[in-house]
């Protein structure tokens, strides 16, 4: 075997085969729910299982919205996620600026504090937060999820923003200030335009997380009319234990927004991750 052949063979074994295995492992579960969601109820239980629907049906999808109330759950999830995304983006944009551009007393403390709060688990905070929300009459109210969703995403998003600011040279807004801008207008006119992609990435991160929020949702929401998608799916699993086609369809629809968003922002996630990434 020539040296060149040997090198190609090495690349196949060391790179292409592992790449293919990782790809199959990643995609197989997605494929399986898509496949299940397109089968009619009898075929789901057919023996042997079918790897491609004999007869493709979309009733699993239409039933979600007409009989199982998922239109409501989706609306609720969207409401929560959109508000959380907006609040978190604005506050993280402001806070990240302070962390990146100023030196001040207690900065190290703020840093450590924000890192620590990310490790506070939802199951632990759930108990006192339930009492707080209860005393504010916010149980079975989407506002409770908006408040908590914002709070739990703030610190990570602030670190993300800080990283993005750090990557932009300070001379940019300083030059604008020399030219007679105030700090505020320098930020708005010079800094913000170049921050656009970063704001999108941070917002998208907050959106995905609030879309996926579950532990707080089970604690604060008990009435079906306020269910978010994860709650709806979890209830679906418990209540309609044999309608796996419907369950799979619900998953597919719930996954679409987050997977699309993820595909666009995954490049931006790598850099800021290590600083304080506790969230999945």
């Amino acid at each position: 075997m020539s040296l060149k052949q040997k090198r190609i063979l090495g690349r196949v074994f060391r790179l292409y085969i592992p790449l293919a295995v990782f790809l199959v492992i990643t995609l197989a579960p997605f494929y399986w729910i898509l496949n299940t969601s397109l089968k009619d109820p009898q075929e789901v239980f057919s023996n042997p299982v079918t790897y491609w629907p004999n007869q493709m049906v979309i009733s699993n999808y239409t039933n979600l919205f007409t009989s199982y109330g998922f239109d409501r759950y989706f609306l609720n999830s969207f409401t929560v996620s959109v508000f959380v995304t907006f609040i978190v983006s604005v506050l993280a944009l402001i806070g990240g600026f302070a962390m990146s551009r100023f030196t001040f007393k207690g900065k190290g403390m703020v840093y450590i504090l924000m890192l620590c709060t990310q490790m506070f688990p939802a199951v632990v905070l759930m108990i006192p937060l339930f009492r707080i929300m209860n005393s504010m009459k916010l149980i079975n109210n989407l506002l409770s999820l908006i408040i908590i969703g914002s709070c739990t995403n703030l610190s990570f998003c602030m670190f993300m923003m800080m990283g993005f600011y750090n990557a932009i040279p300070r001379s940019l807004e300083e030059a604008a200030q020399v030219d007679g801008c105030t700090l505020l207008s320098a930020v708005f006119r010079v800094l913000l335009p170049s921050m656009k992609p970063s704001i999108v990435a941070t917002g998208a991160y907050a959106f995905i997380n609030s879309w996926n929020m579950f532990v707080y949702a089970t604690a604060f929401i008990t009435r079906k009319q306020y269910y978010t998608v994860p709650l709806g799916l979890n209830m679906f699993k418990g209540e309609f234990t044999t309608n796996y086609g419907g369950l799979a369809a619900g998953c597919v629809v719930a996954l679409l927004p987050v997977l699309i968003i993820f595909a666009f922002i995954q490049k931006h996630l790598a850099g800021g991750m290590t600083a304080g990434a506790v969230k999945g």
Partner: protein
Amino acid sequence: MSVSAKRGKHFNRQKATPYLLLAPILIFVALLMLYPMINVFTMSVQNYKILKPKERAFIGLQNYITIFTKDPLFLKALKNSGIWVAVSVVMQTFLGFWLAMLLNTSFKGRGLYRAVVLSPWAVSGVMVGIIWSLIYGETYGVLNDVLKSLGLIERKFSWFSSAGHAMTATIIANVWRGIPFFCLNYLSALASINTDIYESAKIDGANGWVTLVKITIPMIKDTIILTTLLRSIWTFNAVDLIYSLTYGGPNNATTTIPLYIMTTFKTGMDYGYASALAGISTIIMMVFAGTYIKLGKLGKEGMY
């Protein structure tokens, strides 16, 4: 107003700016994270059952004593948590690192491949639980069918009726979801290594394994320590996947500490006891994090 006074005012405003900018975030965090965290510990020393409000009283460490001496489920949950975290994190570290090494090589279509292969990152725990329950299903699941046609099992069986299988199944689902997180962290660390060092290693005659063990891994040691630490804490706390896949079953074989807290809170309505469990789990994590950082001799630059 004199010039110096004006300057002083300007100076003060400059000084106050960062605090004002950070104020909303800090207020949020103080009210909804710090105060509740303290509240957990104050509730944990009370007899506080929602259904018996009149019996609410300070009882000292009684809840903690009961947990350690009279609660076999706590010990079981602790053991389950240990297995769940250790196996998940070790497997994710290994596979995530491998994937990061692959993605760090250049090949055609790398950008698209990366976006696809990292996508489980965005899938919530509940969804992972449901997706995998459709895979593990006894008759309708694909896994039994594949294993059977490969001749690895004789007949289809229920993954969730024996303790060992249920734990294995839950961990596999968790690993699937966690690989991208590790991979993302290692990727950025690998990208920061200067490629010159590999060139000189090659000239010195080092082969792939030697380069990996002697150069790559030591260079990104801090990232490995930090990632495994953060992920251990996160995995310890993660409850949604188990909640939707097994709900702790069969016979509490997959009940971890957080799930135990959740059921004590939600179904038992025993706030005092649940808070004590929460307090213990917080302390466990703090001790774990402290020891881990000390043993790993984590360099400061890794944190900032």
